[in-house]
């Protein structure tokens, strides 16, 4: 009845690009299975998906060759308007795939285009609303929905066309942990109920791994590196240390890095439970010592206050976005501001920069009221990176973009600084390019560079991981950690719990414009009711160590990956 998708020798080069995005790709997506498509960024994952639904070569120009066999025919080159009845695609950003104004209209849009009659439309509409679980949103306006709800509508709209193959391109990249979990549940439901073929590109592997039947990996050159059953593929990737930019389930790579003996693919743990079982065995065999039980070293207490927020409040049209609150940012902090959507997190950043002058109270930057400072004076001290870096660009050349931040400097000094920062942020090849044509990771790096080049000591980031792929996020965060070590104070608005656990020394939880919590991440993740109120989850490492402590007496509760590795190594090395 249904057919696998067989890709034969597929190559594609975008018009104007020197090297191919896909090169002699041979790959099979098995029918009725969920296939996870992995690959480093720039490996052509999105390009491949566009070839599957016909956007390439019909709407995107370039050189194409090869074959894609599905349903008894070579579908390569068939137009999207025909293919979308066979293969439906859901993209990262639901906003960009909407064509109408309300949920109902959006779902029937494709059906209308297929010229279906009223009764059929009504039937399919009711069917997908129920399947996706959004019956109550039927006549809601799209603009009033949350990110998670929007993505569900996008999925429903694709399901309404009743394609046999459903392709999901990082469907949760823009969603908070709770909404992501709901989307993954939906994928599970689709799998359990229907024999659809699903292809999913997703970096939050850990929460989805239990439903994955098959894994395909592309390499940097845009060819197939590996494909097969999940454990087999992960085992190969673990053994092959050269391939470091493909992301594996956290548990698999953790266990591997800790040096547990794994000699066959079947032994690779991929779920939390499997990880617990394996580590438990190993830990119980050792006694553990005082070394691993001792508390983490205390942070030094000599803190200077860089930014002091004193009794600040902010209203928009009588609505209190920020209720009177006080908070100080200390020199050297890597501070996260977390909390549910609409809590006032971004507003607080804007208040710090005096972009939104506080309606009450004071913001002091090294003791001076920001309201009395000029925009340029504030800019010399701190930078703010917006969610969409493009909005900050002023010129059409990367070089000029950096030069703009150095208006007051001498020419020679300026040139030297720009050269240094271009190299530091990996942009030296692009100095003459337009910033608008950079890749998303490069754009983000450029805006960070332009925010630091004038010697700023404080960097504020508004959801820097939003809409970015995982690899870029990790690179960006590693860079933030390095900058922080060099003395740059960092404040980041986020709901990424792994970011908070692994990088931040302090976290402030905001809800309804009030501070619910201000302390170290370790303490936050131990407070279940607070986490629930703030729509946050526990990092997987934390869950892992809590589970281990139940059976392995005295094993410490760990929050960050580094902490866990130290604790584990300390524990087992003792016996030797």
């Amino acid at each position, binding site marked *: 009845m249904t057919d696998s998708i067989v890709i034969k020798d597929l190559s594609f080069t975008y018009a104007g690009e020197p090297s191919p995005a896909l090169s002699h790709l041979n790959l099979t997506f098995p029918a009725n299975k969920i296939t996870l498509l992995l690959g480093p960024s720039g490996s052509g994952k999105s390009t491949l998906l566009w070839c599957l639904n016909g956007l390439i070569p019909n709407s995107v120009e370039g050189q194409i060759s090869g074959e894609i066999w599905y349903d008894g025919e070579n579908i390569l080159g068939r137009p999207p308007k025909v293919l979308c009845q066979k293969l439906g695609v859901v993209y990262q950003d639901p906003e960009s795939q909407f064509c109408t104004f309300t949920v109902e209209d959006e779902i029937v849009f494709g059906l209308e285009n297929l010229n279906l009659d009223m009764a059929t439309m009504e039937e399919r509409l009711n069917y997908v609303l129920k399947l996706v679980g959004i019956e109550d949103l039927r006549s809601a306006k799209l603009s009033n929905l949350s990110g998670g709800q929007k993505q569900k509508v996008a999925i429903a709209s694709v399901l309404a066309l009743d394609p046999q193959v459903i392709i999901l391109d990082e469907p949760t990249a823009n969603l908070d942990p709770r909404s992501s979990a709901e989307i993954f549940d939906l994928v599970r439901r689709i799998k359990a109920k229907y024999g659809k073929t699903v292809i999913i590109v997703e970096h939050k592997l850990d929460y989805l791994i239990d439903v994955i039947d098959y894994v395909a990996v592309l390499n940097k050159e845009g060819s197939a590196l590996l494909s097969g059953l999940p454990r087999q593929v992960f085992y190969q990737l673990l053994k092959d240390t050269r391939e470091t930019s493909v992301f594996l389930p956290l548990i698999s790579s953790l266990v591997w890095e800790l040096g547990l003996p794994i000699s066959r693919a079947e032994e690779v743990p991929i779920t939390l439970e499997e990880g617990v079982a394996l580590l438990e065995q190993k830990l119980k065999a050792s006694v553990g010592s005082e070394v691993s039980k001792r508390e983490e070293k205390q942070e030094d207490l000599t803190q200077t206050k860089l930014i002091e927020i004193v009794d600040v409040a902010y209203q928009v049209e009588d609505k209190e976005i920020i209720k009177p609150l006080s908070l100080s940012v200390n020199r050297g902090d890597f501070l996260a501001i977390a909390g549910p959507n609409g809590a006032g997190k971004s507003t607080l950043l804007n208040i710090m920069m005096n972009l939104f002058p506080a309606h009450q109270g004071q913001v002091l930057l090294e003791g001076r009221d920001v309201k009395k400072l000029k925009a340029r004076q504030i800019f010399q001290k701190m930078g703010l990176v917006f969610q969409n870096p493009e909005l900050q660009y002023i010129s*059409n050349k990367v070089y000029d973009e950096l030069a703009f931040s150095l208006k007051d400097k001498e020419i020679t000094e300026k040139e030297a600084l720009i050269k240094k920062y271009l190299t530091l942020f990996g942009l030296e090849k692009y100095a003459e390019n337009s910033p608008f044509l950079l890749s998303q990771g490069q754009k983000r790096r450029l805006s960070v560079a332009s925010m630091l080049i004038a010697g700023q000591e404080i960097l504020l980031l508004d959801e820097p991981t939003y809409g970015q792929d995982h690899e870029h996020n990790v690179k960006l965060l590693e860079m933030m950690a390095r900058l922080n070590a060099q003395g740059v104070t960092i404040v980041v608005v986020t709901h990424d719990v792994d970011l908070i656990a692994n990088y931040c020394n302090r976290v402030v939880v905001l809800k309804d414009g009030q501070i619910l919590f201000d302390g170290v991440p370790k303490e936050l993740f131990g407070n279940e009711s607070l986490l629930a109120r703030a729509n946050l989850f526990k990092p997987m490492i934390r869950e892992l160590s809590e589970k281990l402590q139940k059976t392995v007496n005295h094993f410490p509760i760990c929050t960050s990956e580094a902490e866990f590795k130290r604790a584990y190594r300390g524990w087992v090395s003792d016996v030797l």
Partner: protein
Amino acid sequence: MYYKENPSNPPLYRINPSMKVLLIIILTVIISLAYEPILPLVLLISLFAAVCYFGRISPAAFLKVLAPFITLALGFVFFMLLARGLDSSGTYQLWFLKWDGEDLIISLTLGLRILVIILLSMAFILTTQPVEFILSLIQNLKVPYAVGYATLAAYRFLPTFNDELEKIRLAQQVRGIEQEKGIIAGIKAIPRYLLPILATAVRRGERAALAMDGRAFGAFPKRSYYKEIKIQKLDFIALFAVLAYCTVLILSLKALGILNLSLGLNLN
């Protein structure tokens, strides 16, 4: 923008948008025929009352919406009087300006015509859901659906446009650009805004086109509609009412001897 849903769904909201356009055209033609202020004046007052009643709009609120345009119409009449006062001789005099009766009547008629047209346009905007209007153009007036949906796609971007401008302003302030007030500073800032605005607009347009392609848009020459915008009994009643009212009005004004219809040829 101006349109707001009304939960009680008054008759004016329910009239088919294409029919509303037709009614506006009919009324505009009729007032253009009138050469004296009496017909536009009576129509202005009666239409104001009708819109308030059938659209369940409070007269005060409607006046508030119209206020800026009324000022505009008055300004227009003022300049018209000024121009006419300069060149002609006449019986009425103010300082160095002279008018005859003709001048005053023409200016007043023109001002009233403008007001009627403004009133009709605002009534349309206040009571017509933009998406329904486009759908009605496609379904009732056979505008090609590709054109209609392209318009809708553009309309979808309008609300985000202001947000985006504000974000760009903030983003640039972050980079140390002082926000100066005044028209000249505003004009100087345009090139700075243009680049990010164009970049995002082009990307948006591209994505919207891809999104529609990916949902079978244009797969068939015909497409069906889940929401049918029909022409109903109410629409014919409205058409009949407007035609009947205008006929009765014109005939009775004529009978009273206070109306001369013209085709605009006997200006002097």
